[in-house]
C-alpha cells in the first residue's frame, strides 16, 4: 500500500528531510524541516526549543547579582558579552557610573571574547564546508584566550566576571603582558586561516553568491551583527550607541556589499582584526592603578578591607549577599554589540530585590528567521553554509 506523506507545500514528488536536532552542522540542536525536490530546497522551517533552559524566567527568582551567572549560559561562545549587557542594563536602572579602569577592562575582555567567538565560527563554518584544518587552528588560538580569561576570572567559559558596578576581582599582575604577547602572534595566525580559505577556489565556489540577503530584507527581518553588515548595512551598536567607553576607541566597522555567505565571512574575519586593534588600544588605555568597582553603599559590595575593618562595610556586605539590593521601580533596555549582533537586555524592576522581568533580545534568535529566506531554492549543501553564516548559538535562541 502506498504511504502518503504530507509535505509542507503539499507538492507531490518532494521529500521531507528532518535536519537535526541531532545533526553535525546545525550547531547544537537546531532542527530544520526541509522539503526537498531532489537536492533542491522547496521550503525550510526551523524548529527551535530543544535547548530551552528557562533562563529569562529563572532570572525573576534570583537577586540582581545572582542573575549574572545565568546570563553566561545564554550565548556560551561569548559569555562575557552577556555579562556586560546585563550589568549595563542593571547599572542604568541603578543610575551608577562604572570607573574608567573597569570600563576599559570590560572592553578588552569583551573584544577578546568576540575574537574567540569568531574563531569558533570560522572553524565550524569551515568544517561545515569540509575544510577541517581551520577549525583546529582556530581552537589553538581560542585556547590562549580561554587561558587569559581563566587567569583573570578563574573560569574559562562561564566567567561571570563582570559584576554590577564593575568587576568581580582585581586582575592578576602580568595579565596585560600576556594579552599583548597573544596579540603579537595573533595576526600571523589569522593570515593562516585566510591562506586556507579566503582565496581558495573551492571556498569561493561554496560561499560566493550563496545565501543572498538583500539589505531591505535584512532590515525587515531585524537581522543584526555581521550577518546584517554582510548585506551592506552599516550598523554597529558600538559605533551608533556607544557603551562602556567604546566612543574613546578607534576602530572600523567592516561592511561588505554582496550579502552572500562570502561577504559575511569577510565581515567576520575583518572583525577579528578590528577587535585585535581595540584590544591593543585598551591595553594602552588601562591605568595600572585604580578602582575596579564603583562606590555605592548598599548596592555594590564594599572592598574586602572595608568589610573587615568597618561595621558599615560588614553590614552592607551581609545585606547585599543575603537579600540583595532593591533598585528603584522602572524598566530599561540596554543593547550591546555581541559577536552575533545586537544583544539586548530588557530589565524591569518593581522595586523589590529580584528583577520583575528580564527579556533578552537574542541576536541568534532574530538572525535565525532569515534562514528560510536564504536557503529556499538552493541545494542542501547550501543550507549548511547558510546556517553557518547566520552564526546561531542555540543557547541564546532558546533561552
Amino acid at each position, binding site marked *: 500500500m502506498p504511504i502518503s506523506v504530507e509535505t509542507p507545500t503539499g507538492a507531490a514528488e518532494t*521529500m521531507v*528531510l*528532518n535536519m537535526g536536532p541531532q*545533526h*553535525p*552542522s546545525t550547531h547544537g540542536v537546531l532542527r530544520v524541516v526541509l522539503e526537498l525536490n531532489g*537536492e533542491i530546497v522547496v521550503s525550510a522551517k526551523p524548529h527551535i526549543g530543544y535547548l530551552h533552559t528557562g533562563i529569562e524566567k529563572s532570572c525573576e527568582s534570583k537577586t540582581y547579582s545572582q542573575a549574572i551567572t545565568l546570563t553566561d549560559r545564554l550565548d556560551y561562545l561569548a559569555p562575557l558579552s552577556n555579562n556586560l549587557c546585563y550589568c549595563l542594563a542593571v547599572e542604568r536602572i541603578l543610575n551608577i557610573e562604572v570607573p574608567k579602569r573597569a570600563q576599559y577592562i570590560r572592553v578588552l575582555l569583551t573584544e577578546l571574547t568576540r575574537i574567540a567567538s569568531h574563531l569558533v565560527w570560522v572553524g565550524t563554518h*569551515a*568544517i*561545515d*564546508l*569540509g*575544510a*577541517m*584544518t581551520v577549525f*583546529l*587552528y582556530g581552537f*589553538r588560538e581560542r585556547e590562549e584566550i580561554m587561558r587569559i580569561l581563566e587567569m583573570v576570572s578563574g573560569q574559562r567559559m562561564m566567567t561571570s566576571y563582570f559584576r554590577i558596578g564593575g568587576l568581580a576581582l582585581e586582575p592578576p599582575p602580568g595579565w596585560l603582558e600576556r594579552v599583548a604577547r597573544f596579540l603579537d602572534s595573533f595576526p600571523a595566525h589569522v593570515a593562516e586561516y585566510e591562506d*586556507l*580559505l579566503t582565496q*581558495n577556489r*573551492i*571556498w569561493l*565556489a*561554496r560561499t560566493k553568491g550563496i545565501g543572498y540577503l538583500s539589505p531591505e530584507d535584512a532590515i525587515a527581518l531585524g537581522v543584526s551583527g555581521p550577518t546584517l553588515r554582510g548585506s551592506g548595512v552599516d550598523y554597529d551598536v558600538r559605533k551608533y550607541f556607544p557603551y562602556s567607553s567604546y566612543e574613546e576607541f578607534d576602530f572600523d566597522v567592516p561592511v561588505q556589499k554582496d550579502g552572500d555567505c562570502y561577504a559575511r565571512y569577510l565581515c567576520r574575519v575583518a572583525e577579528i582584526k578590528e577587535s585585535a586593534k581595540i584590544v591593543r588600544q585598551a591595553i594602552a588605555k588601562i591605568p595600572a592603578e585604580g578602582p575596579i568597582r564603583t562606590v555605592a553603599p548598599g548596592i555594590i559590595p564594599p572592598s574586602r578591607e572595608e568589610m573587615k575593618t568597618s561595621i558599615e562595610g560588614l553590614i552592607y556586605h551581609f545585606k547585599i549577599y543575603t537579600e540583595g539590593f532593591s533598585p528603584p521601580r522602572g524598566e530599561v533596555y540596554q543593547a550591546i554589540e555581541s559577536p552575533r549582533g545586537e544583544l539586548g537586555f530588557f530589565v524591569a524592576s518593581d522595586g523589590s530585590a529580584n528583577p520583575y522581568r528580564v527579556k533578552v533580545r537574542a541576536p541568534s534568535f532574530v538572525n535565525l528567521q532569515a534562514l528560510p529566506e536564504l536557503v529556499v531554492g538552493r*541545494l*542542501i*549543501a*547550501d*543550507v*549548511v553554509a547558510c546556517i553557518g553564516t547566520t552564526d546561531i548559538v542555540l543557547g541564546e535562541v532558546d533561552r
Partner: protein
Amino acid sequence: MEFVAQHPILVVSLIKIVVLLFLLMTALAYVTWFERKVVARIQSRIGPLYVGAHGLLQPLADGVKFLFKEDVTPPAADRFVYVLAPFLALSLGLATIALIPFGPATIMVLGVPTQMGIANVSLGLLFVFAITSMGVYGVALAGWSSNSKYPLMGGLRSSAQMVSYEVSLTLSVVGVVLLAGTLNFNDLIAYQSGHWRYVRFLPHWNVIPQFVGFLCYFISAIAETNRVPFDLPEAETELVAGFHTEYSSFKFAMFFMAEYANMITVSCLATILFFGGWLSPFPERWTWQLYIPGVGLILGGILLAYDTAMNQRGIARIQLAVVTIGALVIGAACLLPSVMPVVQGPFWFLLKLLGFLFFYVWTRGTLPRFRYDQLMDFGWKFLLPVSLANLVITAFVVMVLNR
C-alpha cells in the same frame, strides 16, 4: 598431497594470495594510522598516542572496538541487500590488488619461479577498471537498502559521482596506453624503464609526457574514492555520514576498509601508469642505489632506537624496541647480496605508494568540499574535455612519431 605435488603453481598462488591478503589488511589498518598521524601534524595536533608507542596499536584497538559494537540493522531496511552491500564494497576493493605487480624479480617459491603479484593478466588495466567501476554498487546499494533519507541521498550522489568520474578516469590513462601500446602492467612498467635521451637524469616515466593525463587521473581518482574535496557521498556535515549512516559495527568497518583499499588501489595504479611502478628513479649504472633500501631502513631503525631510548617509558619502550629491532634486522637483511636485488622493486613501489597516500592526506587537511552540482560541472565540463584533448593530442603525437 599428490594433487598438490602435481600442481605446485596452485599452492604457490594460494600462498601468495594469503600472504598478500594479510599484508594488505595490515596495510589498510596502518594507512588509517598514517593518515591520522599526518593529518594531526598538519593540524598542529599529535594524533594517536596512547595505544602503543606513538599510537602504533591504535588500528588494532579500533578493529576490536568495531567487532564488539552492536550491529544494528534498521527494521525498514532490505536485509539481504543491506548485508550484501558492505561485502560487495570490500571484496571489490580488495580484488584489484591481485593484479598489481610489486616488483620485477622472479623469486623461487617451493621450486616454482613466480613473480611478485598474484596474477599477470594481459589486459590487466582493463580488468582493474572493470572491477573498480563495480565499486559503485556497494555504495549505491548501501544507500538504497538502508531505507533512510540521508543514506539514500548519499547513495544517489555517489552513484552519479562515481559513474561520471569513471569516464574521465578511464580516458585519462588511455594516453599512457597509446604510448606504451599495451594493457599489461608489467609491459607498461617495462616501457618506462631507462632515461630520456637528452635529459639523462630524468627517468623515462609517463608522468613527463603525460602530465596532463596524470593530473586528470589523480583528480578523478580522488573523486572515485570519495575523498576530500570530493567526499560528497559521505559529506559528514550535510548528510550525517552519507551512504553508511545506518551501518554500525563491523559492516561500517568494512566500508571504511573498502575506502582505504580503493585509495591504495588507485595509488598503485598511479604509480604503475605514471611513475614507473617498481622502477628506481636512478640510472642503472649507479650501482650504489642497491644499498638504499637497506641503509634507509637501518637509518630509520637508528632514529627509532634513539626515540626508544630517550622518549619512551614503560611498555611503550618495549613495543618500540621490537619495532626498532625489526627495522634493523630487515634493513640488515636487505644488504645481503642474495636479498638485495629482490627488495629493490617492492621498496621503490611502496615508497611511491606512500607518496600518493601522503598526498591524499594532505588534500584532506587542506581543502574544503565541493558542492554536488559544482562537482558534476567540474567532472563533465572540465575534466572530461581536458582528458579528451589530452587523448587526441597524444594520439596525434604518437602517430607522427611512429611514421
